[in-house]
């Protein structure tokens, strides 16, 4: 992990790739060399102090040669709305790269990557890195409907096999992306590692599936953040602790920003 920098990066390009979903390319040679799949950047969306806090967005793509990174984000509130209004040529104040990144084991041969909704954002970088390392990669994408399926083409270009599930059946398989995962396992395609990012209920289900199938699984979590660099303790999630006698509750709080955002699926305590 390289040091977190606070820099101004130039917006090279902005594109609405799906309704309310934007792809933005940033010139960031200072951070691109150290950036790893699964890490994120913490962005000041506006030029003044409103909204006040930064917004965390995953690194969608890492182009070391050109010194560029991409982000892929959905407009859900004020911060992302203002970000979507920024234009090519603008400077963006970011902190990054932040977080621990997905851990691809050298010995893994087959990699399964599952993304739900905007959760595919960090997965393209992961997919490209995995194929670069010569792994056999399959990607499952879940979305509400056809227009919201994002990243399929780029993921396929990277050399991975892609399958898609839509809730309403408007594109490819009708149903949940977790059905596809279960299907592929049933068919006997057993990955050495599963990586997942998406809605909580989806990740929880994937962790269950992976535990049943005895496949190592890593998930990328989200939590509301303030500092983004490990100082405020605002972004914690519950992580199981090794059965210490004194510890009645058997979990401790870990920071999603710097202890994560990627955690072992088996360690996450899912409540509510």
């Amino acid at each position, binding site marked *: 992990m390289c040091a977190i920098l606070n820099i101004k990066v130039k917006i090279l390009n902005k594109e609405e790739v799906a309704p309310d979903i934007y792809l933005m390319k940033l010139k960031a040679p200072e951070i691109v060399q150290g950036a790893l799949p699964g890490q994120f950047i913490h962005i000041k969306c506006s030029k003044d102090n409103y909204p006040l806090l930064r917004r965390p967005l995953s690194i969608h793509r890492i182009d070391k040669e050109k010194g560029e990174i991409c982000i892929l984000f959905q407009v859900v509130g004020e911060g992302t709305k203002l970000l979507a209004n920024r234009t090519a040529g603008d400077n963006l104040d970011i902190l990054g790269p932040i977080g621990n990144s997905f851990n691809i084991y050298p010995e893994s041969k087959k990699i399964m990557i599952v993304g739900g909704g905007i959760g595919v954002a960090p997965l393209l970088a992961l997919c490209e890195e995995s194929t670069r390392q010569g792994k056999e990669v399959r990607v499952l994408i879940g979305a509400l409907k056809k227009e919201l399926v994002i990243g399929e083409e780029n993921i396929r270009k990277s050399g991975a096999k892609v399958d898609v599930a839509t809730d309403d059946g408007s594109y490819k398989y009708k149903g949940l992306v977790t059905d596809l995962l279960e299907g592929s396992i049933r068919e006997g395609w057993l990955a050495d590692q599963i990586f997942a990012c998406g809605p909580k209920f989806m990740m929880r289900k994937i962790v269950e599936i992976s535990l049943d199938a005895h496949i190592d699984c890593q998930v990328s979590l989200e939590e509301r953040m303030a500092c983004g660099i490990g100082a405020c*303790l605002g972004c914690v999630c519950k992580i199981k602790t090794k059965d210490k006698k004194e510890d009645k509750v058997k979990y401790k709080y870990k920071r999603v920003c710097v202890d994560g955002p990627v955690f072992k699926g088996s360690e996450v305590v899912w409540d509510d």
Partner: protein
Amino acid sequence: MIDKTCLKAEIAGIKLKNPVMTASGTFGYGQEYAPFVDLNRLGAIILKGITLKPKRGNPPPRVIETPSGMLNAIGLQNVGVEVLIKEKLPYFKKFNTPVIINISGDTIEEYLELTRRLGEVSKEMGVAGLEVNISCPNVKKGGMAWGTDAKATYEIVSSIRKVTALPLIVKLTPNVTDIKIIAQAAEEAGADALSLINTLMGMVVDIDSRRPKLANVSGGLSGPAVKPVALWMVWQVFQTVNIPIIGIGGMIKVEDALEFIIAGARAIEIGTANFVNPRVTIEIIEGIEKYLIENNIKDITKLVGSMKI
């Protein structure tokens, strides 16, 4: 125009290069901000609130943005004083910036034990002083209860005073009818300085789930939104006590810091703004220096409490 000015301040006997400190809980254990800030340039560093035993803190979500502010309900998650001493304080050996420990407890005894323990190691580990948090709104026991009642304030501060010679800063809560009375009680009980404000109690509701957005229901409001309230309280307390005041609350640019100094703050703490701009402390130090030079003020102490009404 002068070409040099003096930014030095002295708080509770602690000598500061400049009046800009970091507010407890917003600067972690210091190290987190080292990639962005030369810690040697800060007036002082105040660490995340510490308790005798490690504390797990509150369940998430713990933070939520509000208009020009944020609510937090961290619940004093911290490593406990022993880990602090063993793993966090040694880091500061290479810096010459005073490190102040913000302390909390559920009972007076806990505050006292914590104070004694930090007193024992203060020379060796470079503990410059204590900031007594009697104003945390996010813990069930203790916390703010001490800071909302003058008698309780007097009791806890005088008890701590008896067991330590360390510089004692008492941190006040704004969630009171009359902060002057609390400030006076702390002064009478032997506080060397006062810092204010801690956060205002607040809540945000999720209209979809019809639940509070914070798992803890309420949280502490900080950030620019609270600045006018903090300024008013600093000014009120400045007219009441004779010990130095450290202003806290919503500062995000140099003008904000100057407002606090003019209203009576001998030093200031920057909190939430660190999250927005990790270099904000340095920018504020530089900005204060520029203002003093441009206004022909040779020594910052001339500016402290210079407000005319």
